[in-house]
């Protein structure tokens, strides 16, 4: 049986891992390659490197970071943040990433999803959706949660899948960094609407939250950052708990 995946997210700024609350107020959490290797030893299923600044200088540092991480771990690696074009995606993939995650760029130019899928295969094209509830609707935000759009999360996820996305990385802006649990209602709505896997993100604060998002949120994978960074819970403890609950995981 296919395992539910546990994914560690490294929010990287200028070559260092940082983590904020509600997308703001970043603090330092260490060297990306060291952290990735530690997670790998603990049994993490995938690693996502998210460039949270995406300035020109940061972008150059990112390629070095991706390459350093890819040398140390032999599990899937995704790069997101600041991927604006086919060339940006190619740079990330050449540095050692398997998949790239498109967010703002896909909203601006949805044909970029199809172009990447044609060039690298759908499995390499993840569409990241940042959503925030307003008047009973999950509204999609661009630019790291700074800019609201006219799009609704479920509809955008369906369109992204039709255009060739291989997975959806769904982040709840409301829950990000709050440790109050994943947004199971949002995740389930998107997961049920698309044939492709959905990765839930934003709000992991306890091991129980992962069980909830797999059970109630119908997530195919769950992503977290701070819960792993500060050694609050080892990846292995999390997987043992999920296993004991009858949720399939890789041990």
């Amino acid at each position, binding site marked *: 049986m296919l*395992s539910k995946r546990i994914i560690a997210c490294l929010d990287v700024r200028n070559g260092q891992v940082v983590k904020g609350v509600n997308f703001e107020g970043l603090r330092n959490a260490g060297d990306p390659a060291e952290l990735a290797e530690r997670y790998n030893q603990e049994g993490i*299923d995938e690693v996502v490197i998210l460039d949270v600044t995406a300035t020109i200088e940061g972008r150059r540092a990112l390629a070095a970071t991706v390459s350093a991480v890819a040398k140390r771990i032999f*599990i899937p690696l995704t790069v997101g943040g600041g991927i604006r074009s086919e060339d940006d995606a190619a740079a990330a993939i050449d*540095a050692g990433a398997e998949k790239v995650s498109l967010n703002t760029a896909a909203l601006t130019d949805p044909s970029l999803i199809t172009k990447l899928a044609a060039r*690298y295969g759908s*499995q390499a094209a993840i569409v990241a959706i940042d959503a925030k509830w307003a008047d009973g609707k999950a509204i999609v935000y661009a630019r790291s949660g700074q800019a609201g759009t006219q799009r609704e999360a479920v509809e955008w996820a369906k369109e992204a899948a039709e255009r060739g996305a291989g997975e959806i990385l769904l982040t709840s802006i409301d829950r990000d960094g709050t440790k109050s649990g994943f947004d199971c209602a949002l995740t389930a709505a998107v997961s049920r609407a698309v044939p492709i896997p959905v990765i839930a993100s934003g709000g992991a604060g306890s091991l129980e939250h992962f069980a909830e998002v797999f059970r109630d949120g119908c997530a195919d994978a769950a992503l977290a950052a701070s819960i792993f960074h500060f050694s609050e819970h080892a990846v292995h403890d999390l997987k043992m708990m999920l296993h004991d609950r009858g949720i399939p995981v*890789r041990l």
Partner: protein
Amino acid sequence: MIALIDYGAGNLTSVRKALAAIGANVETPRVPSDLGQAEGVIVLGVGNFQQTAVLNQEWRDAIVGVVERGRPLLGICLGLQWLFEGSSEAPGCQGLSLMSGQCEQLKPEWPYKVPHVGWNELEFPRASRLFEGIRNRSQVYFTHSYAAPVTDETTAVTTHVVPFASAVERGQVYGVQFHPEKSGDVGLRILKNFLNNAV
């Protein structure tokens, strides 16, 4: 020297890094005649079956020639599918036909999603040199939408909606649907087993 065929279908960086980590000497042949010195050959691929059409008759002959010299061939992901007769993904496009059967699309069926992405189990119907030292039900990383049928040549079966061939073997021809280069220590061991067969 292990020849890693680059025909533009997906990225070779990961598999190159994994092979380097286990001490393999890897080269990417530019022309089919470069395969004359190969101790083994790996065909990797992701994406659409149609992309394998780039591997023309000259390349096919050179790759089969490596096998005829008693050297091993490993197809990874789309590379496994290419060992079969063809795929419903690209009906006009001939596979290498070293394995019998056609590859078919996996159909999503709630709660099973397609593409089949993530870590899934290998079940071994029989022993294979490729899986020496690997426990039954070990998990490896998959990412694909089409799959090969279970036949006598199947050495590992994985189930996602339906059972499919996650590994095949016939003489010195091997194929894996999963990505050994992305499957942690289990994957590195599988690549090492292939390497041990080659050199």
